[in-house]
């Protein structure tokens, strides 16, 4: 840890955006965010949100609140009709966002609104990538909105090669997932081609809050870290600040999804949505730093 790079600011506030003239790739931006957190002696905090949920204005307010309340990166969900990796909370949010008229353009608008201040990683299902002109064209759109990376939860190793290359050519990092069911040899191959970070799925299941962090997680994270050259972040099931802290002790990054989407769902206005997520994030940031 270099003392100089430690901002020394109180948890909960975000350092001002660096003024960069040199265009950086998404991969470099993601690496930078993890590095800054590590230099502060903590795991990076990556809240998830659904673009356009419950409406466009609220999601813009939530994204801004994430930046202001201590997020290091944002995982931005693109609403899709058939999200197979998602549990009821995020599935419902996608359905409501679509009913409220959200399109990929809505997601890109939310992305653009914060992407100068924080690296944004899109969470998008494969069919939407293909429907928007294919991987190269989609990467161009995402990069134009400032996105640093993308997670495609239904594009496992074996289907991902062309997409990964097209994304890399555009400077968009394709972040792969590793699951508890992934055999060790396959996990090593996934880690070898990871860009940005490796996303470890904490439990066998879809997204959604869980009462406990599985006991086997530490082993899975350690094994993945040994395989990976990129940072390793954990998501699925983390719903309390204490759980975030617990996972933050073993992983380079912590992703909180359904808990925050649920907070947004219950809010009645953009401001209320922003306040609800800010409260949780500030608490999680404090817990991560402890």
């Amino acid at each position: 840890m270099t003392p100089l790079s430690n901002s020394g600011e109180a948890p909960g506030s975000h350092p001002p955006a660096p003024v960069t003239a040199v265009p950086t790739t998404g991969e470099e931006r993601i690496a930078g965010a993890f590095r800054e957190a590590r230099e502060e002696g903590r795991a990076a905090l990556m809240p998830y949100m659904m673009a356009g949920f419950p409406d466009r204005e609220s999601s813009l307010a939530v994204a801004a609140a994430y930046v202001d309340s201590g997020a290091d990166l944002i995982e931005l969900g693109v609403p899709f009709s058939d999200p197979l990796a998602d549990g009821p909370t995020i599935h419902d949010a996608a359905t409501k966002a679509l009913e409220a008229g959200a399109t990929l353009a809505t997601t890109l608008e939310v992305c653009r609104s914060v992407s100068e201040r924080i690296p944004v990683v899109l969470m998008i299902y494969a069919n939407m990538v293909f429907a928007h002109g294919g991987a190269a064209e989609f990467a161009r759109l995402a990069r134009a909105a400032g996105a640093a990376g993308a997670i495609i939860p239904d594009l496992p190793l074996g289907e991902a090669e062309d997409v990964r290359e097209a994304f890399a050519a555009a400077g968009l990092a394709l972040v792969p997932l590793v699951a508890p069911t992934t055999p060790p040899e396959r996990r090593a191959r996934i880690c070898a081609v990871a860009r940005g970070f490796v996303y470890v799925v904490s439990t066998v299941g879809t997204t959604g809050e869980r009462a406990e962090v599985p006991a086997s997680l530490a082993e899975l994270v350690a094994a993945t870290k040994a395989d990976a050259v990129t940072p390793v972040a954990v998501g699925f099931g983390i719903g309390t600040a204490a759980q975030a802290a617990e996972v933050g002790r073993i992983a380079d990054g912590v992703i909180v999804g359904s808990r925050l989407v649920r907070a947004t769902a219950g809010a009645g206005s953009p401001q209320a949505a922003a306040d609800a997520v800010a409260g949780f994030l500030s608490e999680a940031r404090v817990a991560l730093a402890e």
Partner: protein
Amino acid sequence: MSAIEERFGPYGGRYVPETLIAALDELTAAWIEAREDADFVARLELLRRDFIGRPTPLYLAQRLSERVGSKVYLKREDLAHTGAHKINNALGQALLAERMGKPRVIAETGAGQHGVATATACALLGLECVVYMGTEDIRRQAPNVERMRLLGAEVAPVEAGARTLKEAVSAAIRDWVANVETTHYVIGSAVGPAPYPALVRDLQRVIGEEAREQSLAAEGALPARVIACVGGGSNAIGIFSPFVADAEVALIGVEAAGEGLDTLRHGASLGAGSTGVLHGSLSAVLADEEGQILEAHSVSAGLDYPGVGPEHAQLRDTGRATYVSISDRQALAAFGRLSRLEGIIPALESSHAIAWLLENPGESGFDVLCLSGRGDKDLAEYLEQTGKGAGG
């Protein structure tokens, strides 16, 4: 024997969460091993004969032939145990689940036929069974819901979206993601991530193998045309498959035109869809320009699906098979017509194939039509849709 296809031309693949990949590998290995295991094959064949009642007859439908003006044989899958071709797949996959040591089986169902078939196979083998079904389908296929429960299965209602087959498949896949270590997912059609499209085809191929042999026995020739309805495409791929190499045999798949291909209320993914990913494979799907999957519509729950098996997309592209479509109205009329002409009440799904045949008589030789199931389950829906009371 060769490996199992993962792709059919550009179609197929495994577009699923990472969590499922190990289970798909396990299933692939189990099927390659099982289909070469003499004991497994013997057990499957015995159960096909004594439990399902195979071979099903190839029946010369005299009065239908007279009406159409050309000779038509019906491949009587309606006479298979539980009343449809679905049991061919469900039984084979339940045996595989047992072989893999998975005590719990899940399935999705639209018309309820696959749910009943899976519940039946699970009862036979003593496996726990949960069947996901959209609440709209629970309404229109009520008799099958009671049958599943009687057979010891749990019917899990699905409230999402249009509450039909697409959402039931999604719910089953999510259950599988969460319980993959103890559970086998018996998918009901030739759709889904590899190896399912090939596995389901292999298990349904018995329809076409029998029909080909029976055609040669009855006529000393192969049929001019083989006709089948296409939902996810399992009865069609099952009967087409052994005829694909016979270039002189025309293969015709009949999709649901619903209220019309120009209305967006149909189920014709091959005829009017685009290329996309649904439920784990790249194939023909109904989707909007944003890539959102659209709701399908058909009066028959089994054809009410916005996707189709990847092998059909390839057969369409290569021109080896031709895909046409039939509206709700035409299918309902054919349902009544076959009942009165032959004393056979066809499933509303199969009625689509009958309706196409009624309008497109053969020009030479004879035709074989896959009567994929019987229509008892559809009686209430037929009466409601046609406004006919009892005796109407």
